[in-house]
């Protein structure tokens, strides 16, 4: 399988505080990885570096053959190939769900309005909220909003999807509807990097699980090995806490 994301000795600081320490990570095309770890360990920062919502200071990040550096042309190109879903949904509250989905296809990919709407309807169908298309984000439940956010990202027809704790802000009864959509997406062959503490989801779809602590990757294993025989003490502690 071909490499689609490659991080080499990536380091990042916020001021004096080092958030990422010598991160090395490769993700192959169509692979699904789950990233977990305690709060503040740098998981969000790591995946935000992949589409350059955060800038790294040292090391190399190559996404889909393009190196992330100060060259802004590359950045916009990469961002339209990498979709991202956030903990807080971050839908645009002044636009209807449909407009949320068609905005980037029209303005970034220069599609016609009609084309963009067809595309949006197709993905809204996929996440099962076509009937809500005319509503505004504020009128939807959390679960529906998060599914709309996934549809919005998919409308750019990305090769890679990043998820930053997509279910952490949801009421328990809505978590499943979002995870179902994500499982579907995974089965469809999308490359996915998911920060989550939903270990059920990890066991079901992840090819590899990565455990981070204090800015470093502490453990990285194929899913069943990660759960069945973790080596690192911190991973064991974390798993014992989270699995019950």
């Amino acid at each position, binding site marked *: 399988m071909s490499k689609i994301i490659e991080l080499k000795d990536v380091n990042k600081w916020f001021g004096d505080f080092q958030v990422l320490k010598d991160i090395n990570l490769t993700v192959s095309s169509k692979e699904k990885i789950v990233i977990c770890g305690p709060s503040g360990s740098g998981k969000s920062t790591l995946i*935000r570096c992949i*589409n350059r*919502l955060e800038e790294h200071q040292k090391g190399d990040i190559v996404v889909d053959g393009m190196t992330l550096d100060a060259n*802004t042309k590359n950045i*916009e*190109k990469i*961002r*339209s190939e*990498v*979709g*991202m879903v*956030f903990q*807080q949904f*971050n*839908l*645009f*509250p*002044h636009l209807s769900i449909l407009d949320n989905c068609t*905005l*980037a296809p029209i*303005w*970034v*990919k220069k599609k016609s309005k009609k084309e963009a709407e067809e595309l949006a309807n197709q993905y809204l169908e996929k996440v099962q909220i076509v009937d809500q298309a005319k509503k*505004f*984000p*504020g009128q939807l439940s959390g679960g529906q909003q998060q599914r709309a*956010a996934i549809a*919005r*990202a998919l409308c*750019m027809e990305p090769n890679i999807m990043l998820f930053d704790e997509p279910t952490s802000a949801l009421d328990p009864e809505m978590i499943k509807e979002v995870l179902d959509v994500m499982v579907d997406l995974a089965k469809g062959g999308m490359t996915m990097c998911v920060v989550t503490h939903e270990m059920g989801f990890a066991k079901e779809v992840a090819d590899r699980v990565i455990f981070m602590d204090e800015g470093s990757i502490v453990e990285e294993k194929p899913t069943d090995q990660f759960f069945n025989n973790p080596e690192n003490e911190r991973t064991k502690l974390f798993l014992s806490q989270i699995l019950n």
Partner: protein
Amino acid sequence: MKFINWSKQNLFANWKDSLLTITILYLFYVSMPPLLNWVFLDATFFGDSKKDCTGDGACWVFVNVWIKRFTYGMYPNDQIWRINLAFVIFFISIGSYFFVSSKIKKCIFIFLTVIFPFLAIFLFHGGSLGLEEVETRVWGGLFLTLFISVFSIIFCFPIGVLLAMGRRSNLPVIKYFSIGFIELWRGVPLITVLFMAAVMFPVFLPSGTNLDKLIRVIIAITLFESAYIAEVVRGGLQAIPRGQYDAANSIGMGYWKSHLLIILPQALKIVIPGVANTFIALFKDTPLILVVGLMELLGMVNMAKTNPAWLGLATEGYVFAAFVYFIFCFSMSRYSLGLENKLKTTN
């Protein structure tokens, strides 16, 4: 019956409320009759000179006789139709805006923002195509008030928005330029700025060029007010959560696209009250152009009251001017409130 219940609950609920209600009613009782007498019952409305005012009340003859000057300044009488025509076109386009389909709406909007300003300036100033030239130094009255306000508002708003964005920019040059610009204009009184525009500005221009005083004044007011708009808009920008920027960036939108399509629509909606406030203040600051020899409504009133044939009628003049200012400011205020409510219901 309903009224009695309502007033029991709202006006006379306890002895403090009752006392307050009675005091206010008493103040009305004491002040309203003399005021009404002065304004209406004892006032003289029609006539040609001060001698016609025989009653104890206001002498509205003054306003009546001078109304043309109050409205148009020293604009030649036989050319006044040009101003009227421009305003009629303006109000017809705005009025019809609310009754036509969205396609024609777009046309009207483009007409008003792109074509109309030039058309209006051509009508007012003339000097070609058979229209007699009317120099700006004879422009005045309410016409000048509106001219200056409308053009300053049109220009200061986009400049203010750009400054607000500039102040939050990551590029140090742009950031510090914006900060410096904003703080400079906010730090000096408008009257000084106007004075500089009239007296100092020509010194900086290459000799031989001559920029019309009215244009200089509009530039001065525009820059001055854009600093205030910038700070109001910055407040709105700050209220937009970081997640909105992240989301916009993550779907491939760059700086301009994310600001124009996502950040500004939300930020500007929040700051409508503050922007309206600034525009109203701008409108009410226009009389200050008196210091550079331009006379809008209040300036004309000032001039008229010193006319030997009309001495002693300052009160009438000022009350009239206040009334006109109030009408315009109150309309602006209501409009902004309407806009706020309209945008609120769409999400």
